[in-house]
């Protein structure tokens, strides 16, 4: 894994900022999509920048992920390909979500390149908003140690935090931050060409950094197995499911902040669903004697799962956007993991790989069908 080890100037963000400025200056890219601190200071938003002066105020690796990067990129190319050559500075889960959206023609990747980095994880947006400065210092700590208890639950169990199987162009290695050094490697020809154009020769061998990555993965796998096994019996059966979601107020926010949910109008908000006759609700009461109105909370969550579980990159945006902090991302990550294993499918691994339900094999899944025909 050839790349370049770069000593940090002041801190990580300023070092990456310098590289971004060079990339713009040398016209490797026309514009950069990168998070920036919002005017009021307690949060971050993605800005598409062309002007290098504004680049000064950017924070390539913010402590929180208020907007999932794929949702930002989607707005740019949903109506067609933009002939701007854009470099997106995003976390691995945001890049993978973008690849999934590209398969659904919501993002056009023709002129889009990605700069990713080893993602230590993100804090909960609400915690950050309550105390921005304190969280900022805490995050510097986290980047060095990769340890924290107030990570978002999705980050605690995230296995795709590094560059394996990640279709990005440039990657920044952060697993050796204790020595105030970061690594940068090209993952594509475009990446290689851009680095050489800005005078960075990839002569350093970074394969040594892999040991830290494996170490972190081991811990994450342990977290994941523990979390999923606890979840399995907590959520099982109609009562289990219902207790798990008992605080849900049916506001459907988890669907809106999810990068994979791209429908203009969600089926569960459509008039076919929302507007049915009074007797239908009274009929629903029927023998039960009463329903939680309108009685479609479980249908919504299970239905959304059946729509997007295969493409779910477990980025945790749903839990971050839930006003009631229902552990939605744990349930969805758990189901997504199982369903994706079934088709041996990893979302966001490769733009050409079709989403399993949009293709088929003639000879598969026999255990799910009763096919003892006459022949």
């Amino acid at each position, binding site marked *: 894994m050839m790349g370049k080890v770069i000593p940090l100037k002041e801190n990580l963000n300023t070092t990456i900022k310098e590289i971004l400025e060079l990339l713009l200056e040398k016209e490797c890219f026309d514009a950069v999509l990168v998070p920036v601190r919002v005017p009021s200071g307690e949060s971050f938003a993605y800005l598409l920048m062309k002007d290098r002066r504004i680049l000064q105020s950017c924070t390539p690796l913010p402590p929180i992920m208020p907007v999932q990067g794929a949702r930002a990129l989607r707005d740019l190319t949903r109506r067609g390909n933009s002939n701007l050559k854009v470099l997106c500075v995003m976390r691995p889960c945001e890049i993978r979500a973008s690849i999934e959206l590209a398969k659904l023609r919501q993002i056009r990747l023709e002129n889009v390149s990605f700069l990713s980095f080893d993602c230590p994880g993100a804090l909960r947006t609400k915690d950050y908003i309550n105390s921005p400065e304190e969280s900022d210092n805490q995050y510097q700590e986290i980047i060095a140690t990769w340890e924290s208890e107030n990570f978002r639950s999705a980050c605690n169990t995230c296995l795709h935090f590094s560059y394996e199987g990640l279709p990005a162009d440039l990657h920044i290695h952060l697993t050796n931050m204790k020595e105030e050094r970061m690594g940068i490697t090209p993952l594509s020809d475009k990446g290689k060409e851009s680095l050489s154009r800005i005078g960075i020769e990839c002569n350093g061998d970074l394969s040594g950094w892999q040991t830290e990555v494996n170490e972190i993965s081991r811990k994450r796998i342990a977290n994941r197995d523990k979390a999923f096994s606890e979840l399995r019996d907590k959520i099982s059966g109609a009562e289990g499911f219902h207790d798990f979601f008992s605080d849900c107020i049916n506001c459907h926010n988890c669907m809106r902040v999810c990068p994979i949910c791209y429908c203009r109008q969600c089926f569960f908000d459509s008039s076919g669903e929302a507007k049915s006759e009074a007797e239908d609700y009274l009929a629903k009461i029927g023998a039960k004697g009463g329903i939680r109105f309108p009685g479609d909370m479980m249908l919504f969550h299970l239905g959304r799962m059946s729509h997007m*579980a295969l493409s779910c990159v477990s980025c945790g945006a749903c839990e971050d956007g839930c006003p009631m902090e229902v552990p939605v991302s744990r349930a969805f990550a758990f189901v997504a993991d199982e369903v994706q294993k079934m088709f041996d499918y990893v979302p966001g691994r490769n733009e050409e790989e079709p989403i399993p339900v949009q293709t088929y094999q003639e000879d598969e899944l026999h255990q799910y069908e009763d096919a003892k025909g006459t022949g």
Partner: protein
Amino acid sequence: MDGDFLPRIIGFLCNWCSYAGADLAGVTRLKMPPSLVPIRVMCSSRVDPLFILKALLGGADGVLVAGCHPGDCHYQTGNYYTRRRIALTQKIFSELGLEVSRLKLAWVAASEGARFKKVVTEFTEQLREMGPSPIGEEVFL
């Protein structure tokens, strides 16, 4: 199991094969428990997983999706997509501890009246043993 519990099954039968198979079962007077009420669709690939979800959450004891044998689909490739959608739905159910076996996918050709009877009778028996669906009385869905 209490003998008199008659499970309520929603049957999505594809017009060209399984619905014709069911008709044939009727024409040849094959008797079977009256648990399944058919809904005719032009192809099994018309069955949206959300129909299945609505049926089971609406209190159905079982849902049968029936179509042509793979390779015989009147619309060439419809049943291949059906198979994947059913597999995905069953997988999600099983992961959430919801009773997977309440959803059954069966291929029944137009000439297989006897097979239709076997599928309906076996499915009804299986559901009788499982008893009424617990989701039926779940109040706060």
